[in-house]
């Protein structure tokens, strides 16, 4: 019964979305305020019903109602509770339901927090948001109904793919979806601006917090996915340039560009058309990501059993929204007033530089990801584009961008003085060069480019700190004055510093891990010892353990450092009973704060030996800590008073007669 109510709630959400997609925009065209006002309650109701539908499916999973196909195929009565709940989105239908529920959540948030947006803009934004919602409600209801039932209920379910039975599943998809779907707000704002044919700096101020929030979630979602793959798959890799990973990287790159171009628009009223285009592209790439992952055109852990009608449906949604929005863009873009120009050497210039390289990098990833699909569709030729392609294209495009990152914030708006910036950054530059030399000397004979990478990382980190240092006049004024200045700095300045610092931290981790990791692959028998970097690992033997829904063979390892036993590591192989599918559970120990000793078991041999993969990964944790810094930076930036959602704007551009604040409601 609850399942049927959930299904019904989803249909009601669709009905409300249809109303919301027509009436408010019609209201704007007809200058009818009562029609425009439908948008808010409709968005709230949509969220209520989509949330109920999601709760109903969660309930079915929690009580293991195997008469529901979705529960039968992805759950099992002995599955631990956390995986019963996270298993709701560990399958195609459930994850699409999460997608629409998050979309409805964002719509409702815009309705609640957007009360002092101009009424016409608010109505248009919510209207456009509802178009997206209608498309995806239809997709779920017509092709991916999670509420379908069997005539006769089976006794037991088929269990969830064991690779997904991990706490990572509870966190990674919701974060990623909050990011993907969050960009729909930027898209709706862009489409609304095009429909109205009016856009100004205030628009950028309204869009930026939403974009920033989506970006923070996407950053965390990608980082979480990367760490999950690192410890779960047992290959020791953290990024594979897999099409599915690229699908999330593309909106992230475009979203990062959007964040930066929106600053120019907000502060200088320039780059308006470009910012609108970026907002459209960023969400289009999110849709493309959904298409790549959900349509089954790719072979990956994310592609659940595929059904061609779904792929076609998402493709239609993708083409309609990308094509439609770009058509409106082409028709209306030149009606928007253009912004002023600026000197190439200026804060704006630096941000344009950022945008150029980020979009070029996005395009390179786009081509590398889609070229194999295109080639196969046109000529039937089968190729795969892997890490070598992306290292050759993405890498060189990132280097100039990273080199300029510390310089940008030092440049003044309109016209910057490169010489003055050079003087201020001279010490940082010298320290970065010193880091290159010291690294080169310490790691003689290692990869040649690695010391340069370390230098760039130091340049980024110290450059970010130096910006704050100069702003608060550290050492130039008494410490008390500096501290007061530090407290008074706007949140967005601190946010910029933290995020840019995080890029440096991440780069340091990437360089150290790629250049100096130690890898040992061998077959070990009980009692044998192997030395990896400075550790002696002794295989003490196998041990059988019975888990809730799996049987586990643990390989016990004693780790000795400087003659002292420091810890025991227990990597294992699990065989899940229902699917008789094995998974590898790695054992990871963190040493020296950021470095990790990583053990993964292979297949057992008849003579009692076991294949082992042992890694020493120096500073590998910095990769994800860097991402965390970026996300914290974004969050701190969100607290900036000037960016607060619905903050009073200095320029109330109530040009249209009906664009009065809705606060009177």
């Amino acid at each position, binding site marked *: 019964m609850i399942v049927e109510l959930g299904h019904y709630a989803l249909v009601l959400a669709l009905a409300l979305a249809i109303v919301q997609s027509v009436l408010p925009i019609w209201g704007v065209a007809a200058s009818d305020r009562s029609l425009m006002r439908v948008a808010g309650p409709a968005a709230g109701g949509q969220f209520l019903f989509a949330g109920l539908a999601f709760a109903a499916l969660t309930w079915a999973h929690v009580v293991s109602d195997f008469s529901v*196909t979705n529960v039968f195929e992805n759950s099992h009565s002995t599955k631990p509770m956390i995986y019963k709940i996270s298993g709701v989105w560990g399958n195609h239908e459930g994850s699409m339901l999460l997608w629409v529920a998050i979309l409805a959540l964002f719509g409702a948030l815009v309705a609640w927090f957007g009360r002092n947006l101009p009424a016409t803009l608010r109505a248009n934004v919510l209207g456009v948001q509802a178009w997206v919602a209608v498309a995806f409600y239809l997709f779920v209801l017509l092709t991916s109904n999670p509420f*379908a039932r*069997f005539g006769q209920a089976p006794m037991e379910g088929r269990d969830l*793919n064991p*690779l997904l039975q991990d706490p990572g599943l509870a966190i990674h998809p919701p974060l990623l979806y909050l990011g993907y779907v969050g960009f729909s707000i930027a898209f709706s704002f862009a489409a609304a601006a095009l429909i109205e044919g009016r856009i100004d700096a205030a628009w950028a101020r309204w869009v930026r917090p939403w974009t920033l929030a989506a970006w923070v979630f996407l950053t965390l979602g990608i980082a979480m996915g990367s760490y999950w793959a690192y410890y779960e798959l*047992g290959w020791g890799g953290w990024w594979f340039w897999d099409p599915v990973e690229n699908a999330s990287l593309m909106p992230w790159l475009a979203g990062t560009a959007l964040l930066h171009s929106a600053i120019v628009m907000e502060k200088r009223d320039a780059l308006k058309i470009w910012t609108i285009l970026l907002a459209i592209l960023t969400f289009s790439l999110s849709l493309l990501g959904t298409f790549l992952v959900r349509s089954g055109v790719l*072979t*990956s*852990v994310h*592609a*659940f*059993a*595929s*059904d061609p009608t779904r792929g076609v449906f998402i493709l239609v949604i993708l083409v309609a929204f990308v094509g439609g929005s770009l058509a409106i863009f082409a028709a209306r873009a030149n009606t928007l007033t253009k912004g002023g*120009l*600026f*000197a*190439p050497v200026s804060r704006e*210039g630096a941000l*344009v*530089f950022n945008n*150029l*390289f980020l979009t*070029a*990098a996005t*395009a*390179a990833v786009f*081509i*590398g990801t889609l*070229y*194999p699909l295109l080639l196969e569709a046109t000529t039937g*030729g*089968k*190729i*795969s*584009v*892997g890490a*070598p*392609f992306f290292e*050759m*294209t993405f890498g*060189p*495009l990132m280097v100039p961008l990273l080199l300029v990152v510390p310089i940008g914030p030092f440049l003044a708006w309109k016209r910057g003085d490169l010489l003055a910036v050079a003087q201020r950054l001279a010490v940082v530059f010298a320290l970065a060069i010193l880091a290159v030399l010291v690294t080169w000397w310490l790691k003689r004979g290692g990869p040649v480019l690695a010391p340069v990478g370390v230098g760039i990382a130091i340049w980024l980190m110290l450059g970010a700190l130096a910006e704050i240092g100069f702003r608060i006049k550290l050492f130039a004024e008494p410490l008390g004055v500096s501290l007061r200045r530090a407290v008074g700095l706007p949140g967005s300045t601190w946010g910029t510093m933290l995020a840019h610092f995080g890029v440096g931290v991440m780069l340091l981790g990437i360089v150290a891990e790629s250049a100096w990791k130690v890898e040992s*692959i*061998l*077959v070990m028998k009980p009692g044998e010892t192997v030395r990896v970097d400075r550790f002696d690992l002794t295989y003490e033997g196998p041990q059988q353990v019975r888990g809730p829904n799996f049987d586990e063979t643990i390989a016990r390892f004693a780790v000795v450092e400087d003659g002292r036993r420091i810890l025991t590591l227990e990597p294992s*192989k699990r065989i899940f009973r229902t*699917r008789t*599918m*094995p*998974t*590898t559970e790695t054992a990871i120990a963190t040493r020296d704060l950021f470095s990790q000793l990583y053990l*993964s*078991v*292979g*297949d057992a*041999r008849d003579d009692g030996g076991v*294949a*082992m*993969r042992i890694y020493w990964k120096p500073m590998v944790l910095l990769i994800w800590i860097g991402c965390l810094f970026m996300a914290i930076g974004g969050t701190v930036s969100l607290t900036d008073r000037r960016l607060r959602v619905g903050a009073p704007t200095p320029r109330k551009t109530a040009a249209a007669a009906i664009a009065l604040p809705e606060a009177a409601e």
Partner: protein
Amino acid sequence: MTRKQKRLTLIGLAGLVLAAAVGLVLVALGDKITYFTSPTDLAEHRVSVGTRLRLGGLVEAGSIVRDGATVRFRVSDGVNAVPVTYTGILPDLFREGQGTVAEGKVGTDGVFAADSVLAKHDEKYMPKEVADALKQSGHWQEESGKAQPKSK
């Protein structure tokens, strides 16, 4: 700088970056991509020695031989089979009679030296390239390869 000069500088810079990006992508597409091949393609010498390839097919039953951390097996499409060597840990779902994709180079001795071996993530799933290769050689069985039906 005049307005015109400013605009030209920006457009020039943008053009430069785009040209560099296009150049990089074109070079990388010519040089850094991996072609997919079937055991039959290899047996008929349709690929040259030393190029990076992806070899897809089924792991021939009874062909897996382990020697320390090195594994030897044969990848077959039902018509031809190619010997493969790989040093490292095989994926969890690597089994005899199952689909696999090996990436590496074929040597002058005709042995395919793989540096990575992939299997599927989910037992319901057959790598698409493998399914296509099997279809081509006529050894595709609908019931074993296809995802299981949604409902009964």
